[in-house]
């Protein structure tokens, strides 16, 4: 397996008033193609910062971030936005669907950033919704769907443009156990059958069990690696 993501000696500091808070001081991380990594850790350990760096929604102060041979740490806002649209599918804790759009329209959003024709977009939306088993709910608005169904729509939105990498922030944090397991099963399937590389931040040890490995983050360092 080759590395999909590599963080080398990454430093990240936030300024809060006059005080500067160091989150990472020389963080190294390698994630292989086809890996499914759960990241756990207490509040304030740097999970969210790591998620933002991996997703290209925040920039490091120094160090290298490589994605599939592409160095993204020097990218400006516009370049990062383009890279995210091409390469990353995001799955949020509270689904973050657009309430005025129906399921199919929500799933279609990332395709609006591509040059695909309307017909091709429709076909891809259909495929994505069929993968998550919600094609029959394509015309439903988010408020007409259950939490689990909304998260499935969000997963369909994350995979519709066929990115290599899925980034999940507490994807089951808002769901009951059974529904959570369903969603995690879907993620596992995407990893095993479609080869998606997945990084999932979670507080839930049960959820972490669906991953291939778990990293514990504490005070900006990976304290323990469980295979």
């Amino acid at each position, binding site marked *: 397996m080759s590395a999909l993501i590599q963080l080398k000696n990454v430093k990240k500091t936030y300024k809060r008033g006059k005080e500067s808070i160091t989150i990472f001081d020389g963080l190294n991380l390698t994630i292989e193609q086809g890996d499914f990594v759960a990241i756990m850790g207490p509040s304030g350990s740097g999970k*969210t910062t790591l*998620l*933002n760096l991996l*997703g290209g*929604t*925040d920039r490091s102060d120094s160090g290298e971030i490589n994605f599939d041979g592409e160095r993204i740490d020097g990218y400006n*806002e*516009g370049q990062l*936005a*383009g890279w*995210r*649209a*091409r390469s990353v599918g*995001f799955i*949020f*804790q*509270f689904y*973050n669907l*657009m*309430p*005025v*759009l129906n399921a199919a329209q929500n799933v279609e*959003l*990332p395709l*609006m*950033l*591509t*040059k695909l024709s309307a017909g091709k977009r429709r076909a891809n939306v259909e495929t994505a919704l069929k993968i998550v088993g919600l094609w029959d709910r394509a015309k439903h608005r988010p408020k007409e769907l259950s939490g689990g169904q909304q998260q499935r729509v969000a997963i369909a*939105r994350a995979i519709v443009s066929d990115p290599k990498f899925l*980034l999940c*922030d*507490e994807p089951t944090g808002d769901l009951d156990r059974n529904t959570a397991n369903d969603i995690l099963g879907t993620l596992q399937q995407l990893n095993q059958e479609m080869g998606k590389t997945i990084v999932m931040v979670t507080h839930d040890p049960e959820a972490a069990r669906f991953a291939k490995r778990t990293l514990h983050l504490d005070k900006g360092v990976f304290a323990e690696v469980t295979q």
Partner: protein
Amino acid sequence: MSLLNQTGSVIAMNVRSIPQRLWMSLATVGSIALVVAVLLGFLALANGFNQTLKGSGAPDVAITLRDGAASELNSVVSREQIDLLGQGPGVRAGPDGRPLISAELVLIVDGIKKSTGTKANMPLRGIGPNGLLVRPQAKITQGRMFTPGSNEIVVGAGLLREFSGFELGKTLRFGAQTWKVVGVFEAPGTVFESELWADAPVIQSLFKRGSTFQTARIGLTSPAAMPAFVKYVKDEQRLQLKAQSEQTYFADQAERSGLLIKYFGWPLGIIMAIGALAGALNTMYASVSSRAAEIATLRVIGFSGFSAFIGTMVEALVLSALGALVGVAICALGFNGLSASTLGAGFTQVAFRLQIGPDIITQAVTLALIIGLIGGIFPGLRASRQRPLLALAT
């Protein structure tokens, strides 16, 4: 293509989410509608007033006043001067073969305004047989023309609409004399419709004016004859009069009085617009903050800050355009064609109809869109600066 697509999606989402902020959006639409309606009302007033004054003057009729007089009321023209005017170049001959000159005088009499029940000034004009010939647009529509030498008057249709007591057949009292209304005349879209007409010699004798008049209207062979005639009046030392085309005379008056209405309307419109702008800004800031999570999510997915900006701008413009539409509708249904009267030059009442035209609609709608533009620009910038942090989106 992708920029168009993503901007289009954001615009569609913003506009479709307006019902989620229904009352706030309605308040914005309402306040913009009010601004448009008020401004349009004033502009329609000025427009109607201008059109009436401008429509009053003929290009081939010269009006002469005493040199230095600003209006008919403070002018004096003698019988001798009128004879001299008849010798000028380009003067048309009347049906009797003599120069077509209407020597006239104007007095102010009281009338009761229907709308307020208060007294107002109105012009009583003394004209001779040529009075109707120099006003081809004037027609007796009810009753008949006054008989020369009698205490009879005819009344303009505009005056009849705005003032009470002048109906056909009524007897009126001006000064020591009684007068009988024997006819109604129409002269659509002119100031003459706001006048009372009677026989000039009768007025001269009853109001002790001797043989003097106040103006003379001279029919010329064509508008092209005007400059030569104006020059003749200016150069003829015995006249001491000033001549100009009737069209120019009324256009000048229209400009002065019309500007007054207009310059009252615009500041009022702008002050109200500032109020409406505050409302629009408030609505749009609320819209941006209620969509903060949505905007952040779209930014995470890869949508540009520009699309968030344009989406907010378009929402503001849609609200202001709706407001403009409602405002124009209120005006068109409520005010357009409404008759009104106000003080014209010479301190007499001029009756006219409010007129909404494409040019003033354009002005009012432009103001509404400016409110929308400014009301959208700052909230739009805030939306575009929303950082695509995952923490914000969740």
